């Protein structure tokens, strides 16, 4: 496991997370490294905390008041190379900055009620880019990066709401990729899509890992084994096992992991 070539982009350390009003923490002392330009899959039965952990990694939880974090989530500073704890961030603009560095794709496609072009340009405009020519270039680059340029180049002014589910999801990926994040978090990105769209999204995720580190929550074992380099198995708020995907699927060290991936429970 100790692979010296791998660089950590993020690292979760002893993370406890409690939802507002909950008597017990949902995450109970999680430890998880996220390696640069790799895809890390989070698997486990419903309610095991995998989405909760993912949503902690860009602090999207903080939209809802009353929750508590304990522990650390480190994110590497691109300039200094130092790890910095994102749980220390307090101000709104610090959190905004974090989310531009650690983006997120959701289960259901979430196109904004505006044109395809404006969807992709939205995040860029939030970053302060106003120049029309610059925006045009970045939008095109992002749509190409999400392999959806061919389908959209003649209808950039059309509403994004008229696209198919699979196209909408790729548009959402384009929208996030446009911000050039360091990490992109996928929360079951294909569970609302048909097999063909799922294939296209998986291909896209494998493609973008060249530039962006990926963490993905999935219920689909085949997806985890096809797509990811590392896999972590979670159960009831604990990380049971983390290893290279091949090892997890062929020769897991924990009995519980084996039972889950072979479908004996979950």
């Amino acid at each position, binding site marked *: 496991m100790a692979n010296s070539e791998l660089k950590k982009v993020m690292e979760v350390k002893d993370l406890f997370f409690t939802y507002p009003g909950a008597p017990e923490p949902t995450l109970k002392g999680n430890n998880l490294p996220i390696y640069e330009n790799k895809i890390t899959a989070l698997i486990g039965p419903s309610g095991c905390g995998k989405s909760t952990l993912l949503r902690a990694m*860009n602090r*999207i939880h903080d*939209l809802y008041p009353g929750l508590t974090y304990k522990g650390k989530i480190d994110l590497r500073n691109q300039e200094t190379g130092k790890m910095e704890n994102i749980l220390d961030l307090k101000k*709104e*603009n610090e959190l*905004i*900055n974090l*989310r*531009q560095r650690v*983006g*997120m794709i*959701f*289960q*259901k496609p*979430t196109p*904004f*009620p*505006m044109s395809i072009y404006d969807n992709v340009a*939205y*995040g860029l405009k*939030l*970053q302060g880019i106003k120049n029309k020519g610059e925006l045009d270039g970045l939008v095109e680059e992002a749509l190409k990066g999400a392999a959806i340029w061919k389908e959209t180049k003649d209808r950039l002014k059309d509403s994004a709401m008229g696209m198919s589910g699979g196209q909408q999801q790729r548009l*959402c990926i384009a*929208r*996030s990729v446009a*911000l050039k994040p360091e990490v992109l978090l996928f929360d079951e990105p294909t569970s609302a899509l048909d097999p063909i769209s799922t294939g296209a999204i998986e291909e896209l995720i494998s493609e973008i890992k060249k530039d962006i580190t990926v963490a993905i929550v999935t219920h689909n074992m085949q997806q985890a084994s096809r797509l990811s380099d590392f896999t972590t198995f979670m159960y009831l708020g604990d990380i049971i096992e983390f290893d290279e995907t091949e090892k997890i699927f062929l020769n897991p060290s924990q009995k519980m992991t084996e039972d889950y991936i072979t479908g004996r429970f979950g």
Partner: protein
Amino acid sequence: MNRLLLNKIVLILSTVSAFIGIGFLFWILITLTYKGLAGVHFETFTKDLVEGGIRNLLVGQFTMALMATLVAVPLGVLAGIYLREYGHGSKFASVIRTLSDVMTSAPSIVIGVFVFAILVDPFGGYNGWAGIVALAIMMLPIIIGTTDNMLALVPKELREAGIALGGSKHKIILQIVLQAAKVGVTTGILLSFARIIGETAPLLFTSANNQFFTMDLTGQFPSLTVSIYNLATYPDEASRNLAWAASFILTAIVLFINLTGRYFTRNKH
């Protein structure tokens, strides 16, 4: 056998009830059209009340209703945003929401009397501004309620997606969530406008009425609905005919606004 019989009885009873309800509605519309149309002439729209027309009344009624809309829309939409996006789940917000719901069914005459006490009595007389405030108070809870409900229909993932792109909360609410709820909110505003354009009681002791054309909101202000109320009580034939004509025109306006609102909602789904 018994069940089938019961089924038939219920079917017949409900059909008859529906026809009675619809019957009254058509009776009103037909009477109104028959009696109203007879009194509608070209001069009805070009002359003021003092000369037997309703030009000043239409202008006055719309002026007050539009001004009330200008006051109530920003207040109501912002309050709705507060209830759904900021105060959601808090005790304070739920108290405000309940109060606003109660206000929706507040008797309009009570609102009229209240505004009389705060804006007519202390200022020495009926005035247009008081009418505007009374109408705005009537609109507010409707706009708050629809904004609140329409924002509730916007999936929370859309807000999260905006936040995940690095937006601040207020930008996401104004630029994305409100956009997504735009059709519903606009319909709510339109329907609340239709509601107040035909109100009499809030204007009766606030703006009262004026026979002459005026745009001076500090004095008595012409009102179509108050005029109908007055004209209908006059003994002469001409006044009563004008009341019918005015009623017909008012109904046509309200119907038109309502249908427009419904058309928008239908197109959404």
